[in-house]
């Protein structure tokens, strides 16, 4: 069930009938959804479903073969200062002499020529952002020495410090244990709420996001189904999306999405968190 595209003053992102082909393969097909200011949207899909490609199109790095993308009412362009991006693989080199606060500082003005001017205002901005992501304790540590989760928080701070309107996170929960998953989700939701930033959070499964998600965009085989969770995540809706029988089972406040039949490239049974572990 697709949202109809309506232009409204609070609309941050409008993706309309976007198709993308790369190297002769169609990655995205007739994708449409929109995102309003401050909304938290989960982009749910498995590997190869097209999440990263969708991000790259939104950021203006790939041109769609058809369809349009509008960010805050304007056509998408390269280097849109309204979009912040946190990549999936961060992997910083421990030999690099750069501190967490330096990297966050580059989020303010790293795209401009010249050298950073260490004014009190700039430092205050950096300190505030570090505090918002609970990174003050390792602000002066070398970025390459931080753990994966800590590096991720620094990259979130880097993306948010320039006050974007839209934050894209590419599978931040990959390789995290359940508790860390919950920490990242609540951190992002909290900071995004404070800054009134719209969030497009890509993930394999939606369960960690259920507490904070406003709407869901479910992506499979290059097509999407977007809307409220209750409407999109149903047996009928997902079966239509995947083109085969899918069962959606609700256990307490968790959702279990089960493929009707073993098949490659398909979303396998998504394990729900055991009740009471929240």
């Amino acid at each position, binding site marked *: 069930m697709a949202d109809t595209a309506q232009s409204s003053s609070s609309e941050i992102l409008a993706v309309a009938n976007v198709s993308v082909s790369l190297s002769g393969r169609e990655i995205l097909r007739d994708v449409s959804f929109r995102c309003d200011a401050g909304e938290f949207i989960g982009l749910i899909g498995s590997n190869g479903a097209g999440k990263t490609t969708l991000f790259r199109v939104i*950021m203006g*790095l790939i041109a769609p073969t058809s369809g349009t993308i509008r960010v805050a009412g304007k056509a998408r362009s*390269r*280097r849109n200062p309204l*979009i912040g*991006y*946190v*990549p999936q*693989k*961060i992997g*910083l080199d*421990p*030999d*690099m*002499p*750069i*501190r967490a606060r*330096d*990297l966050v500082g*580059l989020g303010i*003005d*790293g*795209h*401009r*020529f*010249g*050298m*950073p001017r260490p004014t009190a205002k700039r430092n205050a901005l950096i300190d505030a952002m570090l505090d918002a992501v609970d990174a*003050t*304790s*390792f*602000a*002066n*540590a*070398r*970025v390459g*020495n*931080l*753990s994966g989760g*800590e590096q991720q928080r620094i*990259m979130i701070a*880097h*993306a948010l410090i320039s006050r974007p309107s839209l934050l894209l996170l590419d599978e931040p929960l990959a390789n995290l244990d359940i508790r860390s998953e919950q920490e990242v989700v609540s951190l992002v939701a909290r900071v995004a709420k404070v800054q009134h930033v719209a969030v497009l959070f890509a993930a394999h499964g939606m369960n960690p996001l259920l507490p904070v998600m406003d709407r869901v965009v479910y992506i499979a085989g290059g097509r999407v189904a977007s809307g409220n969770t209750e409407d999109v995540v149903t047996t009928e809706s997902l079966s239509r999306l995947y083109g085969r029988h899918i069962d959606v089972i609700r256990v307490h406040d968790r959702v279990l999405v089960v493929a009707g039949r073993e098949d490659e490239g398909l979303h396998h049974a998504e394990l729900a968190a055991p009740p009471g572990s929240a």
Partner: protein
Amino acid sequence: MFSQFMINAWEASTIVAVVAGIVGFFTVLRGSSFAAHALPNGAFAGAAGASLIGASTILGLGVFSLLGAVGIAILGRRARRDVATALTIVVMLGLGSLFLSMSTEYAPEIYSLLFGEVLGVSSNELLPTAVIGMICIAAIIVLYRPLLLTSVVPDVAETRGIKGHWMEFAFLLVVALVTTMAVPVVGTLLIFSLLVSPAAAARSFTNRPLAAMGLSVVLALVTVWSAIALSYTSNLPIGFFVGTIGAVTYAIGRGWTVRRRLTWPAFGGASLRP
């Protein structure tokens, strides 16, 4: 050691060391030590070619190091960076062997270009060396922020409009400029060593980028001054001292890094120094 004759050597090498320390910071950050080796050595072929047609050595160096930078940048778009650099250097050296075969007589300077003859610097070479050196430093200052960002997190830099390919090309151009100014003064071996070892050692001792750059300059100066002094007193080649001192400082740096990791359990997870 401080005769009028030697003053030029001290001054010229100081200029080169300062520039090498600053550019070396980014050379090491970007892991471009192959390019730092390829451009000076390849430029040498240009000097041979210039000597052949009677043009100035600096012109030959400049043209060939520029061609080298272009070659690495263009080939590097399709292939891995190290393959692009390898192909570029062998093409330049292949041309160099052609030029060398065409004449039996070459200006004596060009032989010193390899292992360095700091002692052969004349006073009227100092000014152009300093001027080009200032241009290199200015270029690094201008490129500092985007170059730092793209070197550390290239994916994110790309989304902020910093095109990695153009940054790589710009950086290679700076290295080409450094090559042009430094090779006549210190030779290819020294400029390569000074671009890599001091910065590689410096980053073991500080977490701040600007401090690392400053320390890199200090180490480059210490290296080259010690090497001149030792070479003067022992009569052994200066390249030997530069290479050895470089390796020793690098080893000390790595040892310090290992020690930090072993003895400070909170290392990396807690705030240590301001």
